[in-house]
């Protein structure tokens, strides 16, 4: 008896399971997502207790005999549990990353599809604009957008979304150009399908792979940039347990011996970004080896 031929999705899943980095990345991300969703159940303490328990200020964690039970990674200057803040902080970072990429994709798809599909002067103008946006280093552009629209988490998401949209636009455009050449598009045009129909039914679904791959990798960058804005005080406002803000709050206490408050949030960021990078790399190998340039 011969085996049934594998469907495409079965093949993808098989390739995924054999790609160690993708699997590992997925595990890391799922871990963080669980932390985010189940935060109230997992965290031992309130991340922003009100009133604050200031007497717990700058206590070390499990490695020291001066630690307080229930605060395994130590406390920050205001006596708040670092581990609980990191757990709740995952909500912020993942949300910001996801929405920022969502915005970037929405904008990028709009621009990229328009440029790639219609070509001509539309393409030229739109690509010039993306060139201009590319001329800004990403943090600088984000800082500048925040300077105009104001500080805060929601503004951070918008700012980062705008910053990453040129990249997504390029990806979409490339994808559209590639697909445009394909024969069945010509066929569709020949039988008179409208442009919109072609875009929605053929172009977009076929551009899904690069969007997924780049979206994942971009989310890694978005989380880094969000943390950077938080570090500079331009992102999440106190008392939100945002990882970057936690770093900037605590870095001056290292010199007097309290190193934990500034070390662990950074590790959290590394885990999140690493997971996304691994997943993104893996997805790229699986979905479209062609993209690996």
């Amino acid at each position, binding site marked *: 008896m011969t085996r049934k031929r594998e469907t495409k999705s079965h093949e993808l899943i098989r390739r995924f399971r054999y790609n160690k980095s993708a699997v590992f990345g997925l595990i890391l991300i799922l871990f963080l997502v669980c932390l985010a969703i189940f935060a109230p159940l997992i965290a031992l303490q309130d991340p922003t207790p009100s009133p604050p328990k200031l007497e717990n200020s700058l206590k070390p964690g499990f490695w020291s005999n001066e630690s307080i039970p229930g605060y395994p990674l130590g406390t920050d*200057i205001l006596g708040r549990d670092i581990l609980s803040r990191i757990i709740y902080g995952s909500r912020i970072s993942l949300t910001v990353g996801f929405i920022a990429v969502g915005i970037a994709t929405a904008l990028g798809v709009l621009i990229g599809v328009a440029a790639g599909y219609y070509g001509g002067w539309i393409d030229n103008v739109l690509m010039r604009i993306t060139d201009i946006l590319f001329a800004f280093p990403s943090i600088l552009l984000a800082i500048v957008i925040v300077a105009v629209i104001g500080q805060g988490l929601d503004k951070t998401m918008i700012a980062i979304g705008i910053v990453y949209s040129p990249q997504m636009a390029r990806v979409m455009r490339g994808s559209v150009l590639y697909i445009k050449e394909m024969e069945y598009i010509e066929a569709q045009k020949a039988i008179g399908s409208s442009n919109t129909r072609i875009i929605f039914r053929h172009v977009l679904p076929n551009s899904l792979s690069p969007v997924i791959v780049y979206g994942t990798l971009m989310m890694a960058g978005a989380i880094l940039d969000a943390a950077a804005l938080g570090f500079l005080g331009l992102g999440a406002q106190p008392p939100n347990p945002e990882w970057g803000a936690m770093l900037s709050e605590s870095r001056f206490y290292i010199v007097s011996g309290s190193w934990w408050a500034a070390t662990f949030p950074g590790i959290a960021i590394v885990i999140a970004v690493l997971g996304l990078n691994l997943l993104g790399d893996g997805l790229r190998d699986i979905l479209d080896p062609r993209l690996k340039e």
Partner: protein
Amino acid sequence: MGRDKSYNIKAGVLAIVVCGILIAVSFSGCMETTPTVTEKVVIFACAGDADKLDPADVTDGESTARTDSIFEGLVEYKSGTADIQPCLATSWNISADGKNITFYLRQGVKFHDGTDFNADAVVFSFERQYNTSNPYNQYGEWAYWGYMFSDIEKVEKIDNYTVNIMLSRPNAAMMTSLAMFTVAIVSPTNAALWKEDAFKHPVGTGPFKFVEWVKDDHITVEANKEYWRGAPKLDKVIYRVITDPSARLLAIQAGEIQGMEYPDPASFNSITSDADLQLLTQPGMNVGYLAMNNGYGYNDANHNGMRDTDEPWVKTPGYFVPFTNRSVRQAINYAIDKNSIVENLYKGTAIVAKNGMPPFMLGYNDDIVDYPYNTTKARELLSEAGYPNGFNTTLWVMPVSRPYMFDPAKIGEAIQSYLEDVNIHVDIYQIDWSTYLEKTQAGEHPMCLLGWTGDNGDPDNFMNVLYGENQCTLGTAGNMAFYNNTEVQDLLSAALQTYDVDERAQLYEEAQVIIHDDAPFVYLAHANQNLVFTKNVQGFVLNPTARYFFYPVDMT
């Protein structure tokens, strides 16, 4: 055919670079502990850069830290105290009615630019601040004039070395105020030379001369060899800007600097256990507070430092209805655990404040009972006031260390957390320091953190400047709560106009009772003044006014 050359070259370059870095690192270690300089230079690290180097036009301690080496006034503080002694004036006479002070000036003193110090210079230094028709008046804000010196009606030259200061009414604090930086004597020739840029080219009579100002990096002053008291022992003082407190500490531990201000209280243990460092500390003449905007200010169109009938009360931009209600303000007092903040955030380097000036000041009312930490009472008061579900507001917070608050951001967050517990939801607002001062002085805040360091050791300098309704001037306010209480102002003005010490004390005590009941502020702490020096720097004496005087300092 032998090894490929390009590989050799690559490896060779890499090796050289790595060796070079290793050598540099090991040498740099040597360099920093045994500098082969023959000059006596104290590098003093400050938390921020000066705003301006014109002593009359500044209100912040960073600027005065520098100008105090360059300028002097008619009188000065005796070492370590707020008592005065002659300086550029050798003696003075106060008239019987207390409204005229005649000063006899020191002769033979020269400014750093070689010009003579004389009555013209004194008149110029004062007149440019109070006389709006003086051509140099436009170059500055002269905020301090309104706080302390508005009773001065006129300063006139009697002869080349005699000056008379005419007051509009007697002022018991005036003599000691004259030792302040605001009325230091500047060179008129220099002012004429630089005009609006004079604040970058300071020329005074002091023990050190200005050399250079590299913005946000350092300001260098060098010894004035012709100083009228004799040249200072130090050759140079370099005020270095190191905003990061960890970097300051590491720098002094490494010997890169010889002195620093604002050490982090959390690091006191490492400082006191370090054999090469000395921690200078004393109770501070300051107060750190949370000010709630009580609502109304006025425009001092007549420039007389008082609210006249033709200057009506207007709403401040930060007007916020709940804070006009005394019960709300008291509730906030009950909601904040000051003891916890002082113990855990100030880490014991301060005492809890229950009044608006520190306990050793004349007229301090120790009988007042502070609001205890009581959240039940707080919620009760809020309900009574009509806010059973609390409300939302914004707390303005400074971005820099202050003598009365090492880390305002953290204290602000702690307060945010305490208020959250009684349903008051607070957002934190932070901007750069100079804009912060500008905007809070204009009353744009609903509530803000701020504080004050005493300038002259006189209670008036706290009570009147901070709590008198005359200081609710929009744009140059000293009264950050914009607290209008005529009864209090009358008490404070009366206290200033009498020389009877007991009478003054009693008037101030009465004022403090009213202020306590009205609760326009939450008084947080009186912080210690702390400086760190390396052991080889001797002779620095802390002054209660938190000003830095380097003249007596020597290095071994």
